[in-house]
């Protein structure tokens, strides 16, 4: 630090430090921290407590209706005693046959009462009254219980708000499955990409003349002048049901388009893999090319002269030399594949199995649950970090070599 101050003077050193601090804090660290904060912050949304309250309110309403019925019955019973009973009030229509306001407040049902005449129900009003009262008491108890449950659940939810692992533990098994599968898919893409790109990188690095190398690299770069989405779009034109691939197969007589024999390429994950390999190819080719470029051609000649097969030359000479490049390529490709939204979203969306990035997208922009989305984004970040460490271990390379 002192050396820097001597070199650039106080003003410049201060400026440099301020810029780096801004970059690190405001653009890298703080955003990650807020994402992690949300990931471990549970937001009660639907809420079992809210449901319990709803249920209690519903029961309360039923009890109110019953009270009305009971009161009506009581009046009827009381009127029955005085012998001036009007038509029996129906519980389903409690407003019928309301007694006059002057009716005496009923007490306990009088024993030894005769059933009210003209009542359609076979049940005696007293028995009915008895039954309703018992039912009401039962319900009142249930309400008390369900209010208590609601309170307990509310308290639990309040306690769960804030720091918890619930965003992870409450994630549905389906989403966990998609997460695991996405990691597998990304590994497949990485492996495929390596298989496709290694020969090209080798051809470019070991080309006979520098002119050839330059031409090959230029040919690789030109398609990348086209934006990622347009490259994806070009592929959807090929893989569509009426696309080039199906037309070519039709011309070869393998399928019959006019009979509706189109193969639905876009509906398979294979097409997602293919487009991803194409889209992120340069991130695999260039690192491998970079490390193979330094391989002395005499080494290959020597191995060949000593009778090594081509396979053996690659396995024992070229590949070990390309180790750092392969590591970088694998890390970049895996990272891009696992976090890619564009390819799974735009190549046959909804037709192939979901990728995890699509789930994250839905949580943010469709169901508006940012905290769950953050937790899932964090899962992606963590899996990438683990992958990087694994690759660094397996390929024995350091972080300096990884970032070029």
């Amino acid at each position, binding site marked *: 630090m002192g*050396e*820097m101050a*001597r070199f*650039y*003077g106080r*003003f*410049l050193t201060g*400026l*440099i430090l301020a*810029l*780096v601090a*801004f*970059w690190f804090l*405001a653009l*890298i660290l*703080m*955003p990650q921290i*807020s994402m992690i*904060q*949300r990931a471990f912050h549970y937001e009660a949304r639907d809420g079992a407590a809210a449901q319990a309250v709803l249920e209690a309110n519903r029961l309360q309403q039923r009890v109110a209706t019953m009270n009305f019925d009971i009161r009506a019955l009581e009046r009827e019973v009381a009127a029955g005693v005085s012998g001036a009973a009007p038509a029996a009030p129906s519980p389903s229509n409690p407003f019928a046959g309301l007694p006059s306001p002057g009716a005496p407040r009923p007490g306990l049902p009088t024993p030894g009462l005769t059933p009210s005449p003209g009542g359609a129900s076979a049940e005696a009003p007293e028995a009915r009254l008895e039954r309703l009262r018992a039912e009401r008491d039962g319900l009142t108890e249930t309400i008390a219980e369900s209010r208590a449950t609601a309170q307990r659940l509310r308290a639990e939810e309040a306690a769960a708000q804030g720091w918890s692992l619930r965003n992870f533990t409450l994630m549905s098994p389906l989403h966990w499955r998609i997460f695991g599968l996405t990691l597998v898919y990304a590994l497949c893409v990485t492996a495929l990409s390596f298989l*496709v790109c290694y*020969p090209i990188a*080798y*051809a470019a690095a070991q080309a006979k003349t520098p002119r050839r190398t330059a031409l*090959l690299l230029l040919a*690789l770069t*030109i*398609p990348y*002048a*086209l*934006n990622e*989405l*347009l*490259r994806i*779009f*070009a592929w959807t*034109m*090929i893989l569509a049901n*009426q*696309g*080039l691939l199906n037309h070519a197969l039709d011309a070869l007589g393998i399928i019959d388009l006019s009979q509706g024999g189109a193969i639905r390429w876009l509906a398979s994950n294979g097409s997602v893999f293919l487009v991803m390999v*194409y889209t992120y190819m340069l991130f695999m080719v260039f690192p491998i090319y970079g490390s193979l470029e330094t391989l002395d051609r005499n080494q290959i000649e020597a191995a*060949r*002269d000593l009778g090594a097969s081509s396979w053996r030359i690659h396995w024992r000479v070229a590949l070990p030399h390309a180790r750092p490049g392969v590591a970088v390529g694998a890390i*970049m490709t895996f990272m891009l594949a*696992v976090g*890619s*939204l*564009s390819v799974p979203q735009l190549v046959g969306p909804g037709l192939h199995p979901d990728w995890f*990035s699509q789930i994250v*997208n839905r949580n943010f922009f469709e169901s508006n649950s*940012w905290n769950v*989305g*953050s937790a899932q*984004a964090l899962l*992606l970040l963590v899996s990438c970090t683990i992958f*990087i460490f694994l690759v660094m271990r397996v390929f024995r390379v350091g*972080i300096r070599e990884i*970032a*070029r």
Partner: protein
Amino acid sequence: MSVAVAAPGARTPTDWSGVILKVYVALFLGFMFLPILLMAGAAFNANPTPSALDWRGFTTDWFTGRTDEAGRVIVRGLPQETRFLQGLKHSILIALGVIAISVPLGLAGALLLTRIGSKATGPLYTALVSPLLTPGIVLGVSTMIFWRDAFGVQAGLFTAMLAQSCFIASYCMLMFMARLQRQDRSLEEAALDLGASGFFAFRRVTLPYLTPTIVAASAIAFLQSNENYNTTFFAIGSSWTLVTEIGARMRFGVSPTINAIGVIFILLTVVFAALWAFSLRKKTA
């Protein structure tokens, strides 16, 4: 070499592998260019569903659009697709902002890392390079959350610009570091010995040395910013850039105007590549 001459039989299988490699390279180049050619072809096809096969006659309507005398739109071409044009404006605005942010940040990071000889370099380097190794979706999401939670800034062009700058600055830093490591430090030392202030030495010695890299880093930043989808998609909220608009269009029914944009991209690239090659030739001549 003498061994090879003595045993010519040993060469035959390796020649075969050479042939296989050549065939593979040819196939590979086809794989690279075929999609692009198809895409360009469909831009001039009158067929309203983008296709290079189902040919319905040559047209440039997708570029120019077509209206009848009354001014009613018959074919929606680029001039009628105002969201694309607006998106392009947004893209350029964001890209300029990204250059203004990420080039100074990258330069500062590179100067700090190449000039301090302490042990802090390793972790600092890892920290500043980490955005390159972070999935774009995570960068976009975290930027959107941070600016909303901490400052109440809704996702938009500003957050998209910051999210992009975060990792583009790392690219710039690596470019500056590569250049700085090849610098002859004695020039700066000499300037200081002759009594120049640190700032003066930086401005007159280091900065001119870095100028080509500043230009290159700005160009890379511009391209990366315009190209980016995954990060921008999450950070931009309800606004849009050219690329996110193309993505939205691809999800809800396509039109050959997207192909027309692709052709324009290709042409621009060819022109710029030619200009660049030309300027190089002029310099060496």
